């Protein structure tokens, strides 16, 4: 069982891992550090056995090479991946950004907080989303 984390900030990768651990999530966390790498991983997953498809994707929006919105679109229009839950992680507090991500098919829009406790709530959000699958 794996979680695909698409994130270019080492600090945020550290915090996401910590949030998952804090909430007892022991999944393998596979990290893609730019959009191209993420798409390569997703192409591999869609061609492989269903068990290789990540259980959930944590997706930063502002990524090098290919942006998060393009990755989300790819996931939603690819049959083997379309049912995968996606949590969008972002610094943006723009309602327009949130609306557009929800329209593209994001399950949750999680704003990266500047305080530790709020950031750690991401683990709970992931846990709840996995429980509904």
């Amino acid at each position, binding site marked *: 069982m794996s979680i695909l984390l698409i994130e270019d900030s080492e*600090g*945020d990768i550290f*915090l996401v891992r910590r949030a998952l651990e804090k909430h007892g999530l022991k999944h393998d966390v596979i990290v893609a550090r730019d959009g191209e790498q993420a798409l390569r991983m997703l192409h591999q997953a869609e061609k492989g056995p269903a068990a290789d498809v990540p259980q959930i994707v944590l997706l930063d929006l502002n990524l090098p090479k290919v942006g998060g919105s393009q990755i989300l679109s790819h996931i939603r229009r690819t049959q083997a991946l379309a049912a995968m839950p996606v949590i969008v992680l972002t*610094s943006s507090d*723009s309602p*327009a950004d949130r609306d557009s991500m929800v329209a593209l098919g994001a399950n949750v829009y999680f704003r990266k907080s*500047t305080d530790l406790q709020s*950031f750690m709530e991401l683990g709970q959000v992931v846990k709840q989303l996995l429980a509904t699958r």
Partner: protein
Amino acid sequence: MWAAPIQLCSPSPPGRDPASPCVLDRSERDTQRLLDGAVHDLRGAHRAISISTELLIGGLPSQLDHDAAYAVRELQTGIAKMNALLSGVSSYALCASVSSYSFGPVAVETALTLALASLEPEIRKTGAVVVHGVLPSVVGDLRRLTELFRNLVGNALKYQGSYVPRIEINASQNSHDWLFSVQDNGIGIDQKHWDGLFVPFRRLHGSEIPGLGLGLAICRKIVEAHEGSIRVESQVGLGTAFVFTLPAT
């Protein structure tokens, strides 16, 4: 070098010339991108500093020596200031970006009511009386018009004079526009400061009245995105009126 205007047009107010409000020249577009990019990356850096500081402080002994206590205090103060600054600049960047607006019919009274609800603690604290006349419907972005009123009424509450604040919001119509006024009985603004009032980071007061100096700059961006204009009328010691126009449909 001359740069051809670039159409970035978004949802412009229906019935208006779609070219006029949302054509930004290349320089403006680049500035907008610079602002968006800087805000995004600074948020990341701020988050890293803020959370790392929390982690470090969590590992410190409860009794700190003088230097350590000073350093912790300064870090926390600096982080809070950065937070306020980023929120303000982010809000300015959003309001300056016409493509982020969503225009539709808006009852101005709804925008005002939402603004007053968000200011309820300040209104209660100052005992302010806020009254308004009949307000029309316009074509606009409800969220941004709410922010416009929140800034203007918030200013009136912040810069109160020696009286209990009294704030009046009224509207009248001329041939093309609705003319709105937000009038207070606060400390007023000397005429020599009127020109720079809507410029970002232009503050007329020191730390005795906290603020970033972005509120009125944001107001101007919102009004201009609606094809209107904003100005101030004021008398020191008697009060201030912010007057803005929005197109009548």
